[in-house]
């Protein structure tokens, strides 16, 4: 069965969605990602959706859910590279994804992720400042 690969880069996990998401694929990703976060103790997740051209409300909700789940597991999530058409679709569907952090591209996303993780650790008094 198809799976979306999850790459580990130090403290962060990198997910690049390069195929059209169908519902089962999204559910599998949710399973895989949550177990990968808890297994590796990851601090941040970067999801690149620049190749994603079609979304529906289910996929939109899945992306928001994944972000919320990661937060519970003490990892920050950044969604990067959303296409204009996808953004318009999600807004028209009434999904503004208030809790999700976004960035224009992978580079900006990584920078934001590092900042978020740093700020989070300062807040919680965790002095583990290892970088990728």
């Amino acid at each position, binding site marked *: 069965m198809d799976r979306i690969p999850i790459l580990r880069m130090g403290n962060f996990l990198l997910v690049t969605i390069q195929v059209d998401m169908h519902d089962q694929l999204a559910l599998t990703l949710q399973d895989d990602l949550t177990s990968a976060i808890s297994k590796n103790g990851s601090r941040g997740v970067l999801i690149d959706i620049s190749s994603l051209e079609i979304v529906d409300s289910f996929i939109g909700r899945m992306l928001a859910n994944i972000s919320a789940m990661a937060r519970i597991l003490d990892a920050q999530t950044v969604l990067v590279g959303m296409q*204009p058409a996808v*953004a318009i679709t999600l807004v028209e569907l009434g999904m*503004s994804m208030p809790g999700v952090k*976004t*960035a224009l591209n992978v580079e900006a996303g990584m920078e934001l992720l590092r900042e978020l993780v740093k700020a989070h650790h300062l807040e919680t008094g965790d002095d583990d400042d290892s970088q990728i």
Partner: protein
Amino acid sequence: MSKLADILQKNESDLLSDWMNEQLAAVRRRDLMNDVDLQTQSSELLRAITQAAKNGNVTELSRSEWTPVRDRLTDISASRAKHGFSPSETATFVFSLKQPLFKRLRSDLSKDPEALFSEIWNANAMIDKLGLMTTEAYMKTKEQLIAKQAEEMLELSTPVVKLWQGIVAIPLIGTLDSNRTQVVMESLLSTIVATNSKVAIIDITGVPAVDTLVAQHLLKTITAAKLMGAECILSGIRPQIAQTIVHLGINLTEVITKASLADALALALQKTGKTVVRVDRANQKAGERKEGLDDKDVAEKKGA
């Protein structure tokens, strides 16, 4: 060949001169068209009518023998619409043929009231149909013009400008409807991707009124930009519009708003880690400045 066609053919030149007099007596726009052009148009049209009437039925104007007349009339009508004639002036061009034609019919058929009546009826029907055709062509030309202008306005009215590296602005001018907002949203989002901009400024100084629908459209655009990872700043909200927004109960608390485009640009520069500083003239004269002229106003503070 019907009586009407016969009369048309025999009296073509008389009819033309009567028609010309009739037109000159009725509405005449010398400022828009000279007499020579009018004479040419009228004589060409009359010849085409005569020819068509000779070859076919004078009341069935949709048939193929009337095609030249239809084409001529459409051309004339379209050119008049473009030159700025009013609809009634354009229609009068055709309707003024009625009287000369009826006069001719009366003098030729005075002995036979039965035939006179039926021919007058035919002529009346023919000219009415020609008149309708003229008006239709006139309206069509005007509608095409309006459609073209609307399209041009849509394209003109949504320029996305790059203000700085990573900062774009879209100055909105005129009323926003859902059609325009769609274009605004699409062009803004695609420019954000193309220029890799972190901050987008939406300036609504030129928007005369903001109602709930417009506000909703703006919020949608801002949310879409946020989903893509860019931040939006709304600027140029005039006092009256600020009042309207609060009275309507529109919630803009999630949106960064600034009074002017300048304030918005300052904030955008700050957000992208840049700041504007005054040039120290004394130091510049002493030749102590080593930076290039290009960035003399803006010093980039990395890692702000």
